[in-house]
């Protein structure tokens, strides 16, 4: 396996120009969509099957009555433990040699289980093609020595691309610097593999709590439930089975109703 690649999105540098969103659409040939009114400058409200990069315009109310802008360019996290990948029954969702997660459009059959299994609501169903879509980490570009289109287009280096361990070291230095400057809530989201989901290959520097950016504090892998739920189902099966046995057993003729199961 090649060295793990990553994208680091530093929200402290984002100016909300949406060059990444446009570059993503252009490179991946994603058609335009009807804009929707979200109450802020943000468009769309969530990822769609035609929007893989999405700049979030979060307006946070301040004590003095004003609003503070939190800008964040959001994307598929390419989780080290990916719920969508584990959910896929056809093997269409796979991990590349660079550690990114991709959907093979030639084998996806549109069962939509991945859509409901993403802890971030990234994967979307394309009703035109009948298949699931999400950010490909510009799979065609990274296999030809280029970075993702969004990182290439970002004018402030809010989106950076590189080898994961190098980017994490860089990000940690950036957090320390921001804290020095007085931004006490600055923290990395998904950089540490021990935090959740084995670490995110697209990780973020946030200036506020994850919830402010519409991100879960501790995203959980859906597949954690398989064992417990299956075991409880077996318990339920045993109970129902005993009930049916009680009802159907042939009673002994001379034992006064005692069963002989």
């Amino acid at each position, binding site marked *: 396996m090649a060295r793990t690649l990553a994208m680091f999105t530093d929200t402290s540098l984002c100016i909300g120009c949406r060059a990444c969103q446009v570059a993503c659409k252009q490179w991946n040939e994603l058609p335009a969509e009807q804009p929707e009114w979200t109450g802020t400058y943000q468009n769309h409200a969530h990822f769609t099957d035609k929007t893989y990069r999405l700049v979030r315009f979060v307006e946070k109310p301040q004590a003095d009555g004003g609003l503070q802008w939190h800008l964040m360019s959001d994307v598929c996290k390419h989780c080290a433990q990916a719920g969508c990948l*584990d959910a896929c029954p056809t093997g269409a969702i796979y991990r590349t040699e660079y550690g990114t997660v991709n959907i093979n459009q030639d084998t996806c059959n549109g069962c939509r289980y991945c859509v409901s299994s993403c802890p971030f609501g990234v994967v979307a169903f394309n009703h035109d093609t009948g298949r699931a879509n999400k950010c490909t980490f510009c799979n065609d570009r990274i296999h030809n020595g280029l970075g993702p289109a969004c990182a290439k287009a970002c004018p402030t280096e809010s989106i950076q691309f590189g080898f994961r361990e190098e980017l994490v070291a860089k990000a940690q230095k950036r957090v320390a610097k921001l804290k020095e400057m007085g931004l006490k809530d600055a923290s990395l989201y998904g950089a540490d593999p021990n935090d959740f989901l084995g670490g995110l290959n697209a990780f973020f520097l946030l200036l506020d709590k994850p919830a402010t950016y519409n991100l879960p504090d501790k995203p959980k892998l859906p597949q954690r439930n398989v064992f417990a739920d299956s075991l409880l189902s077996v318990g339920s099966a045993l109970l129902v089975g005993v009930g049916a046995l009680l009802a159907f057993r042939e009673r002994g003729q001379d034992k006064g109703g005692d069963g002989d199961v």
Partner: protein
Amino acid sequence: MFKTPDWGMMIVLYFFLGGIAGGSYFTAAIADNFGGAKDRQVVRWGYLLSLPLVIICGLLLIADLGVPTRFLNMLMVFKFWDPMSIGAWMLGVFGLFSFVSSVLAFSQSEPMISLRRRVSLVGIIFGFFLASYTGVLLSVTAQPFWSEARLMGALFLASGASTGMAAVSLLLFVSGEAAGEGWGKVKRADRYSMIIELVILVLFLGLLGSAAAPITTGAFAPAFWGGLVIAGLLVPLALDFIGPRAKSAALLSAVLVLVGGFFLRYVILMSIQT
């Protein structure tokens, strides 16, 4: 924040009919192995009902795919930890068992009956699987309402058993065999299953707490409380325990159990999908 999978009425029907198929096969298998000669009609109808249902189930699943012609792609991968993958396989395996048992249900010869009994003891596992894995499948998603209680599989299984038994008792009634001893036994087994389902449902709601809001309050609350809890569980139980001993009361109770089983799948699937 989470995206829902756009699973519509075809999947609601699949969950409902899959539960009945598994439940009726299981009822037949228990009656076959542990019942007596008087339960012969329960055995026959139970096996015979499961076969067309499991075929419809497969067709519903294929029709719901974004690219239906690619349904075989699911049978080129086997992921034992993935309910969707293993479920597709087990639906096929259960279909085989259902077919073999249905064919053997017509035989009168002793060796064939003995073979049928042994086949059904293995098939029962897959019947249970079909009735419950759909719940586990929902529980293995990012949706809090579906995943937090971890009792979805257990709940679907109890409901599958009770709807399967209700369907078998209806078939017995329609075919004029309601006078037999088998009918009474199916009704009794159905009562036990309903009580188990009710207990699991209470635990389910308790464990979910506020995450159960999509069904306990709002637009789906009437379907949940009225369609499932009252019409589908409490009224049939009341009819069976304290109602008149008339056949019509037992018949009504069986119909209501089926209605309740449908509403269970309906509210759980549709309430969080907009």
